[in-house]
């Protein structure tokens, strides 16, 4: 690892000079050891041992807390401890190593208080929503949690509904969205819904219809700023070549995708293709001055259109930055 690389890996430590002999190996994955392991007198094994010992102690106490049930969940069933220690590390592997996600405009997210993050939806399975929540948590300086609004279907399926609730998602309906935003949470919504994730590969990066703009009226009613976000990369992970509608109807799902690998390779087809992802947060659209107009269809429609145009324009500019979908 070069000195420049290690400087970049340590935010806020620009004048940190790496000692000449870089012996402290990658103990902890890719990141360098954050404390000086180079002092000659105490053997480095001592430090490493303590790190490992602490890891075991932390893991065991986490297990004990889970088994004894001494953790907190909120009214929506969100379990921050489980999300931070289990869900995010797993998703982070996809986020960082598989999709090589790059985020820009994170400063457009509010530091505190409510916010409505509106994104484009794509990718057959809603991986973009999960990656977006990792992006918000990892890149934002306050490590905020994004509370996703999910389709009914998610909450009808056993196991999936349980996981979604624990990760902070809830049913996409106005009472829930307003309650979350009034409580000062960041709420993530994908107004395209199944129309967005179930579209053909040929239609990639073309925004679908935005429903009735229910998300806008929820934001207006609570005076919450709307942050449009454009996600590039999710379209290529499972390119839909065809949609077997009769089979989908038989199974009671909105679409049955045929991708180059699914259902040809069976479960292997569930491995997403390693496309390069770019996520850009656009400047927030304030709504506090429009609180009275929440029921005015004209205002709601115009605002929804503005959000849609912003996302579409940002998508095109991001696509120009990324000529090769599978490049580094």
């Amino acid at each position: 690892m070069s000195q420049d690389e290690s400087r970049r890996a340590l935010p806020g430590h620009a004048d940190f000079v790496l000692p000449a002999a870089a012996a402290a190996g990658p103990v902890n994955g890719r990141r360098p050891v954050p404390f000086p392991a180079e002092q000659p007198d105490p053997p480095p094994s001592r430090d490493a041992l303590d790190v490992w010992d602490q890891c075991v102690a932390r893991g065991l106490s986490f297990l004990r807390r889970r088994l004894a049930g001494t953790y907190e969940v909120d009214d929506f069933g969100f379990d921050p401890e489980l999300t931070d220690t289990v869900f995010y590390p797993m998703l982070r592997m996809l986020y960082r190593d598989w999709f090589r996600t790059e985020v820009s405009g994170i400063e457009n997210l509010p530091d505190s208080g409510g916010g409505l993050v509106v994104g484009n939806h794509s990718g057959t399975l809603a991986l973009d929503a999960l990656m977006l929540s990792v992006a918000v948590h990892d890149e934002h300086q306050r490590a905020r949690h994004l509370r996703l609004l999910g389709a009914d279907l998610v909450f009808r399926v056993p196991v999936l509904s349980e996981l979604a609730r624990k990760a902070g998602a809830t049913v996409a309906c106005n009472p829930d969205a307003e309650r979350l935003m009034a409580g000062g949470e960041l709420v993530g919504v994908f107004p395209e819904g199944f129309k967005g994730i179930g579209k053909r590969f040929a239609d990639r990066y073309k925004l679908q219809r935005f429903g009735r703009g229910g998300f806008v009226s929820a934001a207006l009613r609570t005076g919450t700023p709307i942050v449009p976000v454009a996600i590039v990369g999710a379209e290529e992970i499972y390119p839909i070549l065809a949609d077997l509608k009769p089979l989908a109807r038989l199974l009671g799902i909105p679409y049955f995708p045929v991708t180059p690998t699914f259902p040809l390779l069976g479960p292997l087809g569930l491995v997403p293709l390693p496309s390069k992802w770019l996520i850009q947060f656009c400047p927030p659209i304030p709504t506090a001055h429009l609180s009275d107009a929440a029921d005015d269809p004209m205002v709601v429609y115009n605002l929804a259109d503005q959000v849609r145009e912003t996302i579409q324009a940002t998508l095109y500019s991001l696509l120009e930055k990324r000529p090769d979908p599978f490049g580094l």
Partner: protein
Amino acid sequence: VVTGVSRFLGARVASRLAADPRIERVIGLDPHDPPPALAGLLAEVELIQADARAAAGALAELGAEALVHLAVTGAPDPQHGGRAAMKEQNVIGTMQLLAAAQGATRLRKLIVRSSTAAYGASFRDPAVFTEDTEPRAVPRGSFARDILDIEGYVRGFRRRRPEVAATVLRFAPMISSIAETTLTRYFAQPFVPTVLGRDARLQFVHVDDALEVLHRSVVEDHPGTFNVAGAGVLMLSQAVRRAGRISLPLPEGTLSSVAGVARTLGVGQIGLDQIDLFVHGRVVDTTRLTTEFGFTPRSTETAFADFIAGHANGAWLTADRLAAAERGILGSIRRVRAATTQDSTADVDEESEASVGAGKLP
């Protein structure tokens, strides 16, 4: 007048009201004799043993000023005639009682015990119910359907007697160290059957807080509908773990049929209400209660902790045992590691680094 005094809640409410100097006379109405365990509580309460039909006449004669309707049964009781009797008591009883109350000219207050089951439970519902949320569909549980009927009669009563302050209290499942309900029996089992792949959000209210709210609504004036629940949420799995029990996840269909078989055998009384609750969970907003009554019930967590304290003997996987196990495992790992590092002390630092790396794998 308090109805349903032969039951746990009714008896306690009646005795609390009797002890209050602001209330002159407390009359308990119930078709059954109170069991001996509750008789002591009812020493100062005048008891009238009558069903709802006979009570109708009594109500006008007594010149009652407040009517507390608690004779609402949550689960069919095989000793008293099962589901048919439950419906008779809940729906027909309420109908007749309210008809009588309509004729009672001196009546000023009506307090009806309802339940958060009125909201039903489905995957499409909002996460938190307020008093204004309408259920998406008619719930499939018998108790919830009764509750909806009862609330319908109360609405009719409000229209016809607008000067009577009608209070509807929607209680979350009640829990305490001594109370016996279907839910407390459920959590007291060593193995608790749950629904596979589902983890419901639950809320409880402590019985003492429920009594306090009922008492206040008699003594003070609080017309309207109120949710009564402890703040906060416990997941079903979390509650089972806190109680030191072991959960036994079963597919939803299996659980329904097992519960059905148990019901017909008279062993358990887990109804479809409860199964829907365990699948989807139910959380209510209590802002209206806390602002109007100026009273905050203790949180769901505290109420459940009180229940655990009263039912500690069936617990197997307690927090103490887990903590001891944690210390034991950690201690033994440290001993093993200390032994391996001592073996390799002769080696240079690089070597022991490697052994650490190797020890990490298993």
